């Protein structure tokens, strides 16, 4: 989850009222923020990506002001109608069709403000922007730009000086040579032409979704900003703009609109929404019996507007609260404003007895029988590495089930047997005293559609006097005294076991598993020196259906 750094001295100034550090720290979790790290002058909090308005300290302060009762209700966006124009050329239709923009005027950009805004931009790119695929944001020094602007597709030979460079480069060079170019060039794959924003003098100001131009770089001297947002999803573009507009207004900028012309595009409207909330829903879901006026007050604490309208509550939701889908989300807002700590738990009585699944009951019996036979339970992963499962055990690997793009070699395939894991377990305990007798009960996977999932039991015994006879005796006693099942063993072959000391395990003539003494080659590849014997059987269909 993304992280925001809050400096206490800045927070105190922004809150507009003296609030103790302790009070701030203890209130933050009630905004749904997780405290990551505490230091003397700052605190790092994680916020959930469904609340992009918490991506700066301005947004978090707005939330704190509500819960602490410093400011209640909406702080409405005030956008002056502007006359400047961005025209979207039809040529961007196939690449990145949508653009929205706004001006933010007369603000002050100190270093921390710039840092907060850049961090917000990155979070928006990664969250709502889906790593810039859906939405990307460019923030520019407005005073370097001459309107009107045009948003169009340009050839890859198009040249300008990108941010972070001293020299003019072609689009192709930027994609191949700069860090962000390399990171995001895949987003433009399949398009010969790429989107650019040009101003009226022909200067390139942005190459979305890759990089801005050096010309319009924002510095601590910038007073007026242009925010442009390009997107493959118009709605997501407006959501993003709403968050940024609100943040910049909270940071002291005056907003002014920019007209957007061109096919499929239009000037964004960042108006708040109205939604009706039924108080009986609130009381029903929360298990409370509070009156509508309390609900109104609670909603206002979460920086929403609300008023009673007949038997309903009429809520006004600012445009940046994109996380509110319907009345149920307002119920949560009431709960947070009312205070989670004020909801006392109630214990509903069960009307019926609970019960374990029949599979669990059968497996519990299998487990206690194995323990009774003197075997210790171990637990291994179901998602395992190929080396142990097949290479070192010399097993047939023609039906491997792979997962895509695993981050670890040890977790690449779904196991189709438990014995390899048990052998590996023994090999990692060779310095411990013998005899070593272990078992595992777990799920194994076989190819098919759907994938066939079975529960197996495997058991293994390692000590100087172990033998086929010992392990067959365990198998036989397990089945007989555990489940009154008789089994037979029929000689067979398997690379895991010694030839002549290997058998198929049959129940009612049907093969349910393998048994044998482990082959010296397999033991050798696991660096084991003690004789070892084991078996593995399928429990699914045998002791439960």
């Amino acid at each position, binding site marked *: 989850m993304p992280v925001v750094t809050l400096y206490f001295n800045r927070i105190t100034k922004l809150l507009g009222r003296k609030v103790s550090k302790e009070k701030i720290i203890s209130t933050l979790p009630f905004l749904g923020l997780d405290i990551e790290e505490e230091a003397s002058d700052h605190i790092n909090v994680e916020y959930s990506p469904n609340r992009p308005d918490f991506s700066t300290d301005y947004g978090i302060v707005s939330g704190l002001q509500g819960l602490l009762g410093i400011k209640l209700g909406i702080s409405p966006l005030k956008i002056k109608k502007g006359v400047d124009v961005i025209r979207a050329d039809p040529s961007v239709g196939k690449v990145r069709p949508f653009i929205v923009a706004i001006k933010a005027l007369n603000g002050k950009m100190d270093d921390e403000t710039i840092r907060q805004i850049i961090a917000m931009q990155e979070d928006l790119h990664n969250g709502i922007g889906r790593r810039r695929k859906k939405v990307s944001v460019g923030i520019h020094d407005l005073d370097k730009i001459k309107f009107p602007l045009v948003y169009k597709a340009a050839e890859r030979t198009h040249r300008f000086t990108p941010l972070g460079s001293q020299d003019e480069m072609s689009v192709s060079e930027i994609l191949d040579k700069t860090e962000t170019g390399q990171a995001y060039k895949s987003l433009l794959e399949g398009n010969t032409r790429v989107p650019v924003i040009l101003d009226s003098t022909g200067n390139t100001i942005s190459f979305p979704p890759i990089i801005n131009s050096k010309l319009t770089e924002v510095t601590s001297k910038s007073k007026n900003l242009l925010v442009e947002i390009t997107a493959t999803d118009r709605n997501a573009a407006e959501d993003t703009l709403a968050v940024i507009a609100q943040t910049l207004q909270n940071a002291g900028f005056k907003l002014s609109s920019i007209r957007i012309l061109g096919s499929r595009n239009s000037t964004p409207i960042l108006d708040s929404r109205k939604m009706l909330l039924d108080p009986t829903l609130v009381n029903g879901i929360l298990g409370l019996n509070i009156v509508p006026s309390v609900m109104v007050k609670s909603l206002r604490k979460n920086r929403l507007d609300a008023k009673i309208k007949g038997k309903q509550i009429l809520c006004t939701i600012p445009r940046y609260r994109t996380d509110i889908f319907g009345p149920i989300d307002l119920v949560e807002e009431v709960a947070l404003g009312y205070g989670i700590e004020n909801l006392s738990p109630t214990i509903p009585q069960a009307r019926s007895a609970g019960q374990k699944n029949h599979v669990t009951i059968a497996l519990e019996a299998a487990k206690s029988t194995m323990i009774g036979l003197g075997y210790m339970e171990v637990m291994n992963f179901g998602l395992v590495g190929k080396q142990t499962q097949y290479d070192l055990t010399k097993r047939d690997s023609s039906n491997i089930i792979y997962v895509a793009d695993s981050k670890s070699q040890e977790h690449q395939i779904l196991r189709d047997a438990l014995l390899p894991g048990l052998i590996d377990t023994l090999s990692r*305990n060779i310095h411990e005293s013998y005899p070593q007798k272990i078992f595992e009960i777990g799920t194994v996977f076989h190819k098919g559609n759907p994938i066939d999932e079975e529960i197996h039991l495997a058991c293994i015994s390692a000590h100087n006097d172990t033998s086929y006879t010992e392990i067959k005796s365990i198998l036989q006693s397990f089945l007989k005294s555990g489940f009154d099942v008789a089994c037979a063993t029929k000689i067979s072959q398997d690379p895991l076991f010694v030839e002549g000391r290997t058998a198929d395990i049959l129940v009612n003539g049907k093969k349910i598993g393998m048994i044998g003494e482990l082959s010296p080659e397999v033991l050798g590849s696991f660096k084991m020196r003690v004789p070892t014997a084991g078996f593995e059987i399928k429990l699914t269909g045998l002791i439960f259906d």
Partner: protein
Amino acid sequence: MSQVLHPIEQKILRALLEKQNVTPDDLSEMTQLSIDQVRRGIEWLKFKDLVQINESEKSFIKLGEGGRTALEKGLPERQLVNYLKSIPVSSCEMNQAKEHLKNEFSPAIANAKKNKWIEIYENRILLKGYHDATAEERIIKLIASKDPVAITTDDIEDKEALDLLKKRPKFLNFTSTKYSTVNITEKGIGAAQNAAQTTDDSVTRAIDVEAPVPMAFVAKSHPLADVIDEVREIFVSLGFSELVGNSTQSSFWNFDALFIPQDHPAREMQDTFYLKDTSAKSIAKPKQINQVSKIHKDGWHSDWKLDAAKKMVLRTHTTCVTIKELADKQYEEARLFSIGRVYRNEKVSYKHLVEFNQVEGVVVGKNVTLRDLMGLQMEFYRKMGIKKAKFWPTFFPYTEPSLQSMIYNERLGKWVELFGMGIFRPEVTKPLGIKHPVLAWGGGIERIAMLKYGLDDVRELYNNKFSWLRSVPKCQ
């Protein structure tokens, strides 16, 4: 009741009744026990206060260079006497004797005079008196007779003569060794007599019931499995019935049915394990697919692709099993839970595993509330022995309102996050025809196990280290 002594102890005590102040080696000889048995027996007896051990030091003597010469040729004074006897009139000039005895002339004269074997008269040495063997000579012979074994100072009775010999340079070599001797105590004498009366090896064959013995290894269930069982028992005791489902699931039930948009970052391959090239043939009833697809298009203003819903994943939570059950069965009222392995494509670390166990419970009912959900948590925690818990708001894509519980861990002395919970969103329940609110909560079992067993690295639960598995107490 008298103390029962081990046969080894009995033998040692009997030997000590006969002779005190003996070394372990002596005891070994006396009792015919091996030296190791004797040493062990002595330790046991000492522990019971039946014997006492004295640490002493012993000096061992061997002949030095001078001693060996004396053995061969006699002491200097003996050589002088022999010389005098060999010459006529048994007397000579001092110088003559000096020439014969060389370096040994001075001690020879001094000692012979002291023994009254000679008389010196006007620079001549005259033999006189009897020349019997001296005590010093006897000591030299005694030492030589035992060679190569060194004898101790205790073996020599005439300490005065020994001192004289010591004074002669390089006649004797001394080495000293520490050693212990064993004595029987008074309590030991009683015990030995008792033992002699009461034990007869062939009849009772009593053993030392108080002696330490080696550990036996207990065959037992895995500690993590014990936590899973404990959690299961609590759910059953709270009236919940168990669901079991597959680890491999279609994206439809793992994500789409839970209103997680198809372009949600959690659905990307760097977070979720997709089975390579595997799509489900049939995922759900046509009506279920239709309704879910519609809510996605309305709620997320974006395309919804059936192919993406068919992709098979390793379930990232057990909620996929729960939601399918609720969609298929349409309960008016239910309490269900499931426990099982879930998978996340993470880098393995002390905090994260790619595969872990999750428990999840749901309550379906016409009038169930968020406060009920909180109450069930508190009840669950109480049964787990957790006394302090509190709730904070949080976000999950498929529940609203959503909370997370924080529990106070005594060992760590701080609040730690445990189960997440919430009420299923209408976007989840309505398309699947679920009419009543569904309270849901869940979390990782390993986290509980780490708190219970005091582990700081989650990987330890799957290491299968026998040293830990064999020693960790079943009840904590």
